[in-house]
């Protein structure tokens, strides 16, 4: 194996290890909770958002947290629900930043799944 390739390999593995360490430290969970709380506060739930609803959103954010795009994936809600979930994300823009910048993710998968 060539040296450059080995270095490349090592870097990839180190990145992965760093990711795992980050996950272990709780920073990612904290970031996730922060995002969930922000979006929940901004989700004005319409009456048609009943139990059994499940709507998946693919969200891209800029490094500062600005929401760049929202794509609605699988969603069994009506138009009112679709508007409300995408607006919840836009209203949350800019999204909060993680305590450790390495926990930042450009892409988010957000699943709206009301408990009751």
């Amino acid at each position, binding site marked *: 194996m060539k040296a450059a390739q080995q270095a490349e390999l090592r870097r990839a593995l180190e990145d992965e290890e760093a990711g795992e360490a980050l996950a272990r430290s709780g920073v990612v969970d904290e970031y996730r909770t922060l995002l969930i709380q922000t979006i929940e506060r901004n989700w004005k739930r319409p009456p048609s958002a009943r139990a059994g609803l499940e709507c998946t959103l*693919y969200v891209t954010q800029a490094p500062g947290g600005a929401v760049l795009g929202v794509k609605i994936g699988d969603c069994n809600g009506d138009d*009112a629900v679709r508007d409300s979930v995408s607006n919840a994300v836009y209203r949350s823009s800019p999204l909060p930043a993680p305590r450790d910048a390495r926990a930042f993710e450009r892409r988010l*998968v957000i699943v709206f799944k009301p408990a009751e």
Partner: protein
Amino acid sequence: MRFQRALPRPVVTCPARLLAWLVVLAGTLATSAHAQLRLDITQGVRDAVPIAVVPFGGQAEGGPNDVAAVIAGDLQLSGRFKPLERRDLVARPTRGEQVRFEDWRLLKSDFLVIGHVTPEASGLAVEFELFNVQTGQRLLTKRLVTSERGLRATAHRIADLIFERLTGIPGAFSTRIAYVAVDGRPPKQRYRLMVADADGYGPRIVTESSEPIMSPAWSPDGQSLAYVSFESKASAIYVQRLATGDRRRVSARSGINGAPAWSPDGRKLALTLSRDGNLDLYVLDLATQGLTRLTSDSAIDTEPEWSRDGASVYFTSDRAGNAQVYRVSAGGGQEAQRLTFTNGYNARPRLSPDGESLALVTLDRGAFRIASYDLKTRNLHVLTDGRQDEAPSFAPNGAILIYATRAGAKGTLAMVSADGRFQQRLSSETGDVREPVWSPSPPAQR
């Protein structure tokens, strides 16, 4: 060893070059699977949704037919929306191409309604557009033709369409409310049976008397009202057609004739009569005048309300010592079944349009309040927090109820959403207002 942990075993045997390529690829894949943070949202808030309704083009602002003001008033009344104040509107677009979404985003408005009124040969054309401010998407647009007199009705219709698009529930703004207004002090009182638009506009007198008028009930087609009047010094039940004013006395038996309730097909009235000395429930066939007895109990049985299928009747009875809600077969000859057990007083049941719950008056911690009783789970959920709330009546979409309450010594009207999270007092005219009843939806919308 790192290799083996990071990669599936067969790959280890690959040529070095390919191996390196695979590792990088795996890294990329790992990053992409990994670099999507998954969030599960299980809760939301039930705040009113901000919406901007811009004054329509081609109209003077602030007149009685101000279309945007009527729409905003309706949305506000529903409790689910919070229209922006007019003075906070940053721009006055009346057509889609004039809208700058950034302006409205800054105001934290989720939705925007614009439109214009233009004269045409057959009257006035009202065109509106509804936008999602966050995405810039146009959600709804429509052109309705009307006349100057029909502008308010058209505005209510637009509010219905917007409400339905944004909540998934049909609007109930193109409806009316009947209620009883009482002026003056005894013995010189004046009773009036009134009908007004659901937003309180344009009240008109259906009938009036110096003797009590009570218990108005809409026919299922919304064309007639049944009510009790003491105008001949004793109680009698009348049915009056609103369009013509024609009325008919349908029950004037000796003793009390009270609490008329229309069957779902509009052919019969359930009512309470005291012909045997105490109040029992009967069904009166309006065409044949035939009377079927539903209950014969020494207690007071009153305030009937039909089930959706017309097969049974809900009512109030004090046969257990205090008022509770029961159900009995509408065909007669069957024992009544008790439904409510939760509080020491439950009365005046009114069925929700979906037939799944009853609104009623309950005695909750020493106060009379409106509650909803789930017919399936048998749970009682108190909706209001007044001291003397009474006479609940569902809007035809089931999303909101109107009821009577007290403001000081005066009776007034209030609304509460069916989930109880939004309550609103309606500013009332002078005098006492009581027994509000929400009309069915107009025929075009059923």
